[in-house]
């Protein structure tokens, strides 16, 4: 099975406090530590496991800039066979639809049976996979937490509300968005990254992909971010202050009053 996995480079929220810049039009990006979107690691792991079982290859692709190459290398250190960096000044300011349009260019240049994305990325939109599927006229299933490969089709479980699982049969080629917990992504050490450090990663631009420049980038974006602001805290929590002993004493009073201690 030929599998393409879409990955996004995102600020790592466990390593950073997200701050808004002084103009209020972006977050402070200067000192951010970046990593692969959490969901995408699960997608890559799943792809590797499928190929281990049924054969084929895993290609990882990202739309980004030069720095995005590092996330491709990380996923190749996990075991993805090939990387593809889609980069072009014309891509900048694309909205979700623009990103999906660019990825469609990469899908059409290959011969993939299965395309995977993460269920969502740092912006919580959960949009790219479903858009790409509809553009390709491929069937789509989101929030997938189980895949069983069959002949020309897959059996997939979708996570739905309450921890229940919706089982579906889906024809290949298809697009799946992967939910966390589907597997346990393998650990990647420095050694693994070093091994793939010199592997050539092709870079493709709008021309190479045959993407219509009018359909991507800032001018084509129908959805535009205007500004960033801090969420309204409302009343917010009463912050307990003082020494740890004082804080714990106050907390215990509250717990007693609210029935939190037995």
């Amino acid at each position, binding site marked *: 099975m030929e599998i393409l996995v879409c990955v996004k480079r995102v600020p790592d929220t466990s390593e950073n406090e997200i701050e808004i810049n002084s103009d209020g039009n972006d977050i402070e990006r200067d000192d951010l530590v970046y990593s692969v979107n959490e969901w995408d690691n699960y997608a890559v792991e799943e792809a590797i496991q499928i190929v281990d079982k049924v054969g084929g290859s895993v290609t990882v692709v990202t739309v980004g800039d030069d720095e995005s190459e590092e996330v491709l290398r990380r996923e190749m250190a996990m075991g993805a066979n090939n990387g593809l960096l889609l980069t072009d000044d014309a891509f900048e300011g694309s909205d979700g639809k623009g990103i999906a349009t660019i990825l469609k260019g990469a899908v059409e240049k290959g011969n993939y049976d299965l395309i995977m994305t993460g269920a969502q990325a740092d912006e919580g939109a959960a949009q790219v996979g479903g858009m790409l599927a509809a553009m390709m006229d491929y069937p789509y299933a989101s929030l997938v937490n189980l895949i069983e490969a069959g002949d020309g089709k897959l059996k997939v479980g979708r996570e739905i509300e309450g921890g229940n699982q*919706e089982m579906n049969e889906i024809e290949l080629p298809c697009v799946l968005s992967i939910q966390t917990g589907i597997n346990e992504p393998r650990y990647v050490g420095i050694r693994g990254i070093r091994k793939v450090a010199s592997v050539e990663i092709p870079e493709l631009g709008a021309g190479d992909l045959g993407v219509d420049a009018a359909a991507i980038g800032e001018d084509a974006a129908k959805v535009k971010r205007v500004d960033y602001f801090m969420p309204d805290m409302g009343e917010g929590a009463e912050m307990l202050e003082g020494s740890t002993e004082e804080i*714990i004493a106050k907390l215990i009073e509250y*717990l007693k009053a609210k029935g939190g201690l037995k």
Partner: protein
Amino acid sequence: MAEIFAYIKHADGVADDSALELFVAAKKIAADATVTAVVTGSGADMDKICTEMAAVYNAVWKIDNAALAYPNAEVVRKALVNTLPADSIVLLPHDTFGMDLGPGLSIKMDSSFAADIVGIEGTDGGALKVIRQEFSGQVSTHVTCDIAAGAVLNIRPGVFQYDDSKAGGDVADKSGDAGDLSVKRTFLEVVEAEAGDVDITKSEVLVSVGRGIEDEDNVEIVFDLAEAMGADVSCSRPIVDAKWMEKSRQVGTSGQTVKPKVYMAMGISGSFQHMGGIKGNPFIVAVNKNTKAPIFQVADVGIEADILEFIPELQEAIEGL
């Protein structure tokens, strides 16, 4: 202004909470908008849901077809594309169904898509201004969405609480317009979640732990604290994904819905999918080392601390009582 349609989610003859929340959201786009509820499905439940929606919405479109008996998003998408006017504004809940349907629907309707909307500030010309959140609610953004050629808008559940407002209208049967509904994804069955050894939905006091616990070896201190308090232990999703606890302890939209008196959120950021599983307005205590964590917006009492240090100290103090 384009027509606004709200997709009504329902199961077993009961409309989802989002069904009426979308009416409230639609009226925020334009107070005088004509808002039509779209009810898809099959069989006896349809009329009951349609009648309920007709009491609130300006109109109801009913699409009854055996292929729609289970809401397979691929089938629903075809039904909507075949029935709705080209430049419609379509509202969906941003849940596991809306995520499945919305993005592809916007492509097939050739309209814009905005996801997980938490605020609507109205229109300016052909643009709708909405509020979204990024980085699990750490920052908010104003986003404009070009709605001139229609839009699909996924609305966060629970944000636009139903306020008893009503328009009222008639039910129109659009089943004949549904057209070809053949798709390449077939629904098989729903597998129910397994029960675990504790039932956290019945717990009065929960010590709930999130990714802030950092390592599997640290999970023990949470159980020790809970034991000292006479509480049960629950967790956020990453703890289950890492297989440090069983799924039956997960609080949230894809886990359990709990109704405790007291909820102690330890190293949990407060994502909407997590908070969506906490009902009954408990007293929430949040302990987090980041004062900007969104959990502090919804907690009653907040403590800025490292849980790895704080939890054992609290346990000791409680045991000393």
